[in-house]
């Protein structure tokens, strides 16, 4: 509770106590009014002041005005009728203030909750000077400085480890609880928590450009992009209050006039004025106006906790309507790293063949030769290799340990006139020939991510109707991956520009309401990410381009998170619609009951405050996304 809230609580308690005591005080006439005005002014003086100021500033129709008119009117009626029942007016003001107090408390609480969720801002960086550690503001650390991160501390700035090994907890960034190992030469990202060992890190970015700053900036500004629901509510509130005031006036004046002039009955002014005042009390739009932005705020907060950063309420809304998901293949559904996954028809030991291949390719920096070297796994002795000849688009020939070795594709074998055994596996095939004889082939292919298949199924059960994969790869490879994962449509052998074209084609043919999401790893997908209804970049830790271009950023590269993001958005939007329907529905019923005289002011204020409290509690539910 802050100071304002404490004062308000004291006022509420004081007014309630006074009201109770006054119930036992026998007083009549003006004395009674005077006594009752004390709790009324304690609880409502600020509302009256605000209403007066509103009138002075020509901002007449707001909640304060409604409450002021309703309560003063009720007191005036009680005075005119001589009933002396002032309790009602005070109670209305009291309950209104209780509602406001609760709202302010709940909003403050969820504000704190969410900022705690995103409590990844590092407060300091350690710099070693003359053997002693000094803490400095991370903003002041220049690029290239070596900083020291002790166990238990947050990595404040992106950089490369120069000394030490440790495990890092990335949960705050990715929602992934599995820790990562980091050693000398590894890149580390700010916001991770160093768990075990001391790390010395050479910074590669300024604090403002580091991952943690970017994320905080993104999250803090997220709810500034408003969704259509929020716009609807602000517009609704703008016409609603004047409309209600007008209706109340009509309710106060028209029926008595009709009774008097048309039906020859007594006008019964006080009943109708009372109903009009009750109408004003029941009409406060607070439940709506507070609960919608609060739902979005909680939804975005909950999503960031799960490692899904949504750049605005509008994107959360679009995400919830996603029916078509288009994937980039490499790096999104597959690891994007090539691995040796088979050695066939080898005339010698597989190990030996791999050794020859790795040595022959040792001079190349091509991803294929990298994966051969990785599969071989041992240090390469380059002195064993001589006479390396690269034949572009074919492969290499070299002399290894005195044997001539040729490693390359079909074309190379044709060129050398060596008969080879074609391979049925999918992937890149490297045929090997040693001393002019065919020695077998090695299959290298991109590996599907462990969760990809599950992710496609999860998307389906989350209501996605169509999954499409776009890739620059050969159709054989693409079809194989798509069949394995259960993807509906595949377009292969696409250049980056073709991808944009394909997405535009898909956008043209889809129904208006179904939204299309594109998921990419963000490295060369920026134009497509922008073109789709909603662009999702994954594995974005450290990639600024992706964070800029995408609307939704998945902090790690697990494709299951896509379905999770959609589910979070559905839940949040579900809550938003519940609140809109619930709040407007109850309001309308209440107004109707009041107009026909079935509800009094007590019921009206209970309905108003009750709906608001329920709507706020419902909104906070959007924060809980763990089990989606």
């Amino acid at each position, binding site marked *: 509770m802050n100071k*304002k809230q404490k004062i308000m609580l004291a006022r509420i308690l004081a007014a309630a106590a006074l009201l109770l005591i006054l119930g036992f005080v026998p007083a009549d006439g003006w004395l009674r009014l005077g006594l009752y005005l004390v709790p009324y002014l304690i609880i409502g003086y600020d509302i009256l002041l605000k209403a007066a100021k509103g009138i002075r500033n020509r901002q007449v129709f707001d*909640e304060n005005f409604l409450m002021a008119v309703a309560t003063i009117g009720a007191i005036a009626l009680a005075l005119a009728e001589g009933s002396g029942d002032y309790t009602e007016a005070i109670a209305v003001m009291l309950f209104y203030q209780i509602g406001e107090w609760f709202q302010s408390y709940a909003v403050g609480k969820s504000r704190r909750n969410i900022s705690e969720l995103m409590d990844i801002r590092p407060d300091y960086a350690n710099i070693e000077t003359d053997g002693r550690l000094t803490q400095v503001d991370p903003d002041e650390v220049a690029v290239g400085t070596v900083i020291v991160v002790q166990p238990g501390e947050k990595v404040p700035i992106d950089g490369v480890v120069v000394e030490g090994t440790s495990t890092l907890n990335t949960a705050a960034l990715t929602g992934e609880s599995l820790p990562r190992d980091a050693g000398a030469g590894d890149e580390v990202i700010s916001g991770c928590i160093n768990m075990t060992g001391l790390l010395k890190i050479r910074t590669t970015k300024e604090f403002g450009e580091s991952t943690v700053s970017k994320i905080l900036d993104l999250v803090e500004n997220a709810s*500034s992009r408003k969704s259509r629901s929020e716009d609807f509510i602000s517009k609704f509130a703008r016409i609603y209050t004047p409309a209600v005031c007008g209706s109340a006036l009509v309710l106060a004046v028209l029926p008595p006039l009709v009774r008097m002039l048309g039906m020859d009955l007594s006008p019964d002014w006080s009943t109708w004025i009372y109903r009009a005042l009750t109408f004003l009390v029941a009409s406060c739009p607070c439940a709506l106006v507070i609960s919608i*932005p609060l739902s979005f705020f909680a939804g975005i907060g909950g999503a960031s906790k799960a490692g899904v950063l949504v750049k605005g309420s509008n994107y959360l809304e679009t995400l919830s309507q996603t029916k078509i998901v288009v994937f980039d293949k490499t790096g999104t559904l597959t690891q994007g790293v090539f691995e040796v996954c088979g050695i066939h028809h080898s005339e010698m030991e597989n190990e030996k063949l791999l050794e020859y291949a790795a040595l022959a390719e040792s001079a190349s920096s091509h991803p294929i030769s990298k994966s051969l070297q990785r599969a071989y796994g041992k240090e390469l002795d380059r002195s064993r290799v001589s006479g390396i000849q690269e034949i572009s688009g074919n492969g290499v020939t070299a002399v290894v340990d005195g044997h001539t070795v040729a490693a390359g594709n079909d074309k190379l074998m044709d060129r050398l006139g060596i008969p080879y055994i074609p391979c049925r596996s999918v992937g890149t095939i490297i045929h090997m020939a040693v001393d002019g004889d065919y020695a077998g082939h090695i299959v290298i292919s991109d590996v599907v991510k462990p969760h990809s298949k599950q992710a496609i199924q999860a998307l389906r059960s989350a209501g996605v109707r169509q999954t499409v994969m776009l890739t620059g790869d050969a159709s054989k490879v693409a079809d194989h991956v798509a069949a394995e994962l259960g993807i509906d449509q595949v377009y292969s052998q696409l250049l980056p520009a073709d991808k944009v074209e394909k997405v535009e084609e898909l956008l043209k043919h889809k129904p208006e309401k179904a939204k299309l999401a594109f998921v990419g790893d963000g490295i060369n997908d920026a134009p497509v990410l922008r073109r789709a209804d909603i662009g999702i970049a994954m594995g974005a830790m450290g990639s600024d381009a992706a964070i800029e271009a995408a609307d939704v950023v998945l902090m790690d590269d697990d494709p299951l998170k896509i379905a999770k993001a959609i589910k979070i958005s559905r839940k949040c939007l579900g809550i938003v619609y519940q609140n809109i329907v619930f709040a407007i529905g109850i309001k309308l019923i209440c107004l109707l009951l009041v107009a026909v005289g079935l509800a009094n002011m007590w019921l009206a204020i209970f309905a108003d405050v009750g709906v608001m409290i329920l709507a706020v509690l419902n909104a906070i539910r959007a924060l809980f996304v763990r089990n989606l």
Partner: protein
Amino acid sequence: MKKTYKIEVDCANCANKMEEAARKTAGVAAATVNFMTLKMIVEFAEGHDPKAVMEQVRKNCKKVEDDCEIYL
């Protein structure tokens, strides 16, 4: 040019009113008020001094919602 200001306001509807008032101020190209993070993001029109514009924004906001504050 875009700038972010910290604000103080009690209710969501008042925040909407502040946003409306800020948008109508001369020299403001666009303005959003984020009630949940209590921030006002103002984009200034070409050739206007942010300081002078913000003084006016603050004045206009005070007019629609007396109980608000913009920390300039």
